[in-house]
Each structure stands twice: as C-alpha cells, then as structure tokens.
C-alpha cells in the first residue's frame, strides 16, 4: 500500500494496521524517518502530485520483484513538518526476516534518490533547499551492482 499525504503520519498506528494483515508472515521490518532538530524549525516537503505516487509505485514494484515479500507499506508525508515528525514509513512483511529487512533497506535507498520530493529546511538564518547526499546515491548504486551479479 502506498500513501502520499499531508496529514500527520502516526507510524505506530499504521504499522499495527499493516501487521494485522500479516496472515502467515513471520517477519515484519520497518523504517521510520523523522525530522531531526538541530536548529531546524520546519521542514517543508514539496511533491509532484500524480508523478510522485507513480514513481513510488515503480520503486515498490522493483522491491516486490527482487524480494520474496507478502506485502509492503510506504507512507510519505508532504507539506510542513516539525522536528520529531515522521516523514516516511516503510514496512515489509515476509516469511523470512532477511527478505523483510533487505526490502526495507532497498526501499529507503531508492526513495532517497528516486522519489520525487524536494525538501526545504527553515532555520534561524533562512530557508535552504536540501540536495541529495552523495552517500545516498552510492547506497542506491550498490543495489544495481548486486542485481548484475
């Protein structure tokens, strides 16, 4: 399931609902990305309605193809967020723990580099766009290499 929403993301509640659909899964892995403090008063996420959802669906499809998964959950916020707010929740259900953990890792690496969001931090000294980090691109490239082997 994919949701791109401006409403607050209650990651515990969303995980509970997702886990309830577990059926015969033995493994549930999840990752929640939170807005860090450290001088940031607000984080604003812009997205491209329609395109953002379809790109996330494409990334999810890749993960489903690559790992033996029963179900996946991706919820991503847009709009204005405060420190401590959840930006993203990714979860994977599988019969095997390795598949669930690797799928979450894979999904996060791809969301970081391919999901159409743009982030602006508001700090005391003004507003700054955040560019993707080089190590995020490297992490994603590692998956491409592993698929060729």
């Amino acid at each position, binding site marked *: 399931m994919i949701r791109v929403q401006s409403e607050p993301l209650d990651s515990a509640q969303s995980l509970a609902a997702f886990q309830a659909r577990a059926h015969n899964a033995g493994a549930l892995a999840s990752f929640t*990305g939170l807005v860090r403090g450290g001088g940031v008063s607000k984080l604003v996420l812009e997205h*491209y309605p329609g395109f953002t959802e379809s790109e996330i669906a494409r990334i999810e499809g890749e993960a489903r193809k690559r790992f033996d998964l029963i179900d996946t959950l991706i919820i*991503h916020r847009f709009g204005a967020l405060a420190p401590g707010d959840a930006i993203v929740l990714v979860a994977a259900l599988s019969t095997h723990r390795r598949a669930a953990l690797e799928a979450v890792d894979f999904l996060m690496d791809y969301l*970081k580099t*391919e999901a*159409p*969001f743009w982030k602006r931090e508001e700090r005391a000294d003004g507003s700054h*766009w955040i560019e993707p980090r080089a190590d995020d691109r490297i992490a994603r490239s590692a998956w491409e290499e592993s698929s060729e082997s």
Partner: protein
Amino acid sequence: MRVLFFGRLADVAGKRERQAPALETIAALRAWIDAEDAVLGEALRGKGVRIALNKSIVHDENASLSEGDEIAFMPPLSGG
C-alpha cells in the same frame, strides 16, 4: 502547454507554474525560456535537473510536444 518548476527551480522562476506557447520540442521550449528569462534558462541546465513530460521522465530533448502537454523541470530529488 504548462511548464512546472520544482524545488529551488521554482524559486528561480519566481513561480511554480508557467504557461508556454505551443512549441514542438523540449529544445524549442528551452530556447523560449532562455529568451524570456536567461537566469532561469541557465538554472534549468543545472546538474541533475530532470525533465518529465506528462509525468514520465524524458531524456530526448527532441521528443515532440503536443498542445496540452505538461513539462516539469525537477532538480535532484530528495525523498525519504
């Protein structure tokens, strides 16, 4: 046709959306933007800027455009 700007490109453009006259290719659209706003034209050639045509990534700037098309200029993404 609608031209959309995301992230810092919207700041450079001064708006998030602009109407352009009917143009045949993305290359022609770029030329029109260069004439209207050279600083924006330059920013759209920045490193990592990607273009979506009707919500699909395009790499070929000579792909032909149609009336009603939506062209988006997107700086490097940062999800998650």
